[in-house]
């Protein structure tokens, strides 16, 4: 790797570390949590936060991961292996009530009336009006219940004030580059909290440069062509057989492999006043 990349990488990491330090100045580390999906971004993020903790002699905040019920086994293995290697007490979160309702069966219809009170209230909150929906992690209702609700419940129970996330601005068009911290006001069924994304300024290319430069572990799926890992049934490889970092990162959208969701399009259209 050439000197320019190395120099840039050093600057990127230093910037991230500053954000992490700022976070620990503003929030007590015991009131913080780190999200980790096992994907390349959140692994990089965790690696950086861990370094700051070691340097500043701070206990690593609680690391959490959400099981959406449709995870790649490779991702689960990766999380287990690396948490051992890095001595991380990883907390697995899951919406068990929902899994129970569909007997962990993907695609199976979940009847809203079978869900527990909280899940039903959550569906009401997002104005989901159907009587049943298929169990898919990335469908509109599924995504909300399997990810958002699980996270909100955790925040509430653990009194977490700050959540470390791994968003990147090149992926989030709506996001300004310098908005590392975003405050989320308390809402119905949602506790007040702040989110911080220390690697916001990394591009997909920067992530891979960093991964290779520092020999970070990564899930083997990236090597066979996946560029972005979400739920198993909705993620597809970019170019099959071509490692992610050798693909055309600059011109092909990263999530092109993830299935476009009809429900998502319909939901947005509804909010635009159609249907």
């Amino acid at each position, binding site marked *: 790797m050439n000197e320019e990349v190395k120099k840039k990488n050093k600057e990127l990491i230093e910037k991230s570390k500053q954000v992490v330090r700022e976070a620990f100045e503003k929030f007590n580390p015991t009131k913080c949590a780190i999200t980790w999906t096992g994907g390349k971004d959140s692994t990089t993020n965790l690696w950086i936060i861990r370094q700051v903790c070691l340097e500043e002699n701070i206990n690593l905040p609680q690391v959490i991961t959400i099981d959406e019920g449709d995870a790649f086994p490779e991702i689960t293995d990766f999380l287990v292996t690396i948490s051992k290697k890095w001595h991380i007490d990883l907390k697995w979160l899951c919406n068990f009530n929902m899994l129970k309702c569909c007997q962990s069966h993907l695609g199976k219809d979940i009847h809203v009336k079978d869900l527990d009170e909280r899940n039903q209230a959550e569906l009401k909150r997002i104005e989901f009006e159907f009587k049943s929906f298929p169990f898919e992690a990335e469908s509109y209702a599924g995504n909300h219940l399997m990810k958002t609700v699980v996270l909100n419940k955790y925040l509430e129970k653990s009194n977490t004030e700050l959540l470390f996330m791994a968003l990147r601005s090149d992926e*989030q*068009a*709506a996001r300004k580059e310098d908005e590392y911290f975003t405050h989320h006001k308390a809402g119905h069924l949602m506790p007040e909290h702040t989110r911080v994304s220390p690697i916001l300024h990394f591009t997909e290319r920067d992530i891979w440069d960093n991964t290779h430069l520092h020999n970070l572990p990564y899930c083997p799926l990236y090597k066979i062509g996946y560029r972005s890992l979400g739920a198993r049934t909705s993620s597809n490889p970019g170019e099959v057989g071509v490692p992610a970092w050798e693909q055309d990162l600059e011109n092909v959208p990263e*999530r092109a492999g993830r299935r*476009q969701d009809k429900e998502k*399009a319909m939901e947005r259209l509804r*909010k*635009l*006043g159609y249907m």
Partner: protein
Amino acid sequence: MKNVILLTVDALRKDVLGCYGNKEGLTSFIDSLQNKSIKFTNAQSTGPYTQASFPGILTSSYYLEYGRQKKCSPRRTLISEVLKKSRITTAAFHSNPYLSNYFGWNRGWDFFYDSMQDEVSDKIPYIKGDGINHKVDQWLTSYTKDDDYHPFFLWTHYMDVHEPYIPAKEYLNKIDPSINLSEDEMLSLFKEVILKRDLSNQKTVKLLKKLYDAGVRETDNYVKEFFSILKKYNVLKDTVVIITTDHGDEFGEHNGLSHDGKMYSELINSPLIIYFDNRTQGETCNNLVSNIDIPPTILHLFNLEPFEKFRGHSMIPLKSYPQNGVFGEAIGKTSNHEKETDKPIYFYQENNLKIIYREDNQSWEMYNLNKDSQESNNLIKSSTKSENMKKKLMTYINREQ
């Protein structure tokens, strides 16, 4: 000219632009482009909503040509597909779900951003203009790194004028500082008034129009930002920019709100501006043109041969544009929900005469737009031209497909 950019603003009424006579100063930036542009004063859309209009804008075909389906038929050819074959780089940036990958509009683009994988806010269900600009900026950074880059065709589409009308506070203040609505209140106006097409309170309709106007003002600023990005990468001087809309919006002119299946001017008479950075003088063109002419015009600007499947004609050079009538079709829905039983509606315009046919009640309307810009005086029974106009419209309806 090396590159062509198509900049479309969803649901932009022609009469809110200063360059088309509006006096409120909502679009000072777009107005400032006039001295380097050709301004078309008589451009019609092929339909009154996105799905009926974009087949014209991007595929030079009519909405119902390939059957009544929501998805872009594989039998349509997008301008991006034609250009890509000619080795022109194509890139699209928008946030309209109807034009997303799911609906089949991603064909032929080297880079296609439809925002469907990004998170959007609960109230404003699309990526706002600054977010779209940010994406364009990123793409241009890498694309123009090499001075010798390939010519490109870029399509950018803004949603910020579209309902729900929730403009940013600073723009609303410029329209009327006395309006003190929260986002939630604006959203409930959308749900309670627009979605229900409730015109019972004229004051509320006027208030909604002000919110809409603020969105126009906000969007003008995104267009300004967009042009400054083009300047930053030094591409503006080599680029033609076509600015238009897919359709307008109604505020009670014909007893409705939003944009349903109607063919009146507030919905289908579009602003259309072609900007040339190297021009020193503006020009106004009063020819009757259609947005179906946009793809052939783009081919012409790239010095490419016409494509036989495109139904329109290049608007440039103005002299050789054929003086024909223009046509459009849609489903004549009258609420926010299109029903299976809703029937088509068609229009045909020639000079200043427009004829409209609604299939559901088999009604005919004809208006002289010169004398009756409100389209309230139906001439179908009194005019001697009715039969001839009916015939011409029927030729389009029964055209070979």
